């Protein structure tokens, strides 16, 4: 399974990748991007099965990336991994087409549950 991790914090990307491995995701291959603009390039290059994306980032925020993907008719599995936790932000994410919304700090179980739809295919 190919997963793109998008977060402006290199350390947080490292923690997310580590947690994905702890979640036991089989055949895991990860790619990383530091913002939405870099993510668009990475999605075109690597065609990941899923995107795990931060909310607040420079250049292009996570919600802008998601809206751009959906406007381009890209239905890739997309979820947020963010310190934002308000109901309004979560609703905006889900309304825009996010499949899941994981609040930092997170556990391996949260990733396992979120990625189960892809693992089932």
């Amino acid at each position, binding site marked *: 399974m190919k997963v793109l991790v998008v977060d402006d*914090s290199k350390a947080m990307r490292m*923690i997310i990748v580590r947690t994905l491995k702890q979640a036991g995701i089989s055949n895991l291959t990860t790619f990383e991007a530091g913002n939405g603009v870099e993510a668009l390039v990475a999605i075109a290059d690597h065609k990941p099965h899923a995107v795990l994306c931060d909310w607040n980032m420079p250049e292009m925020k996570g919600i802008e990336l998601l809206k751009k993907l959906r406007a381009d008719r890209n239905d890739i599995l997309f979820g947020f991994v963010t310190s934002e936790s*308000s109901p309004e932000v979560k609703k905006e994410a889900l309304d825009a087409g996010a499949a899941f919304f994981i609040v930092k700090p997170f556990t391996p179980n949260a990733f396992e549950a979120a990625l189960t739809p892809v693992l089932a295919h």
Partner: protein
Amino acid sequence: MFSNPLPTLNTVERLIHCLLGNQVEARNSAPGPDLTKPHVVASYVDDSNAVQRVLICELGLANSMGAAMSMIPAGVANDATKAGVVAENIASNLGEVLNICVNLFTENSTDRLTFSNLKVCSPKDPAPATKTSVKYAIDIPRYTSGNLLAGSL
């Protein structure tokens, strides 16, 4: 007015375990941060930009938390602490830790808080006038331990 209670020890432990690993220990601590030495103050604001919550962290612990997040050697953190600063390569990690720490305050709440900034303060700087506070001691294996205070304004 943001009314959510200050975080419990369990909430603090759960967060730091996720960020820094299960070996990290948190416990309630009577003395709290030593404000006669340099320390870090992180501010959390509501939607009207009013500071509602603060975290006050001893500088040694701040450098340790930032360093431990991406396994920067403890020596780098200790050198920065001796110099009275947050190391340049630790600062972004520390910012991420403190950003995520907003969820210490918003657990089970629908009100929104946002991490505003962090400031390295000297003993001469006035301490935030907290109405209530909870104090914790944090032990990070192989790094300098220290005290943390969560306060409401």
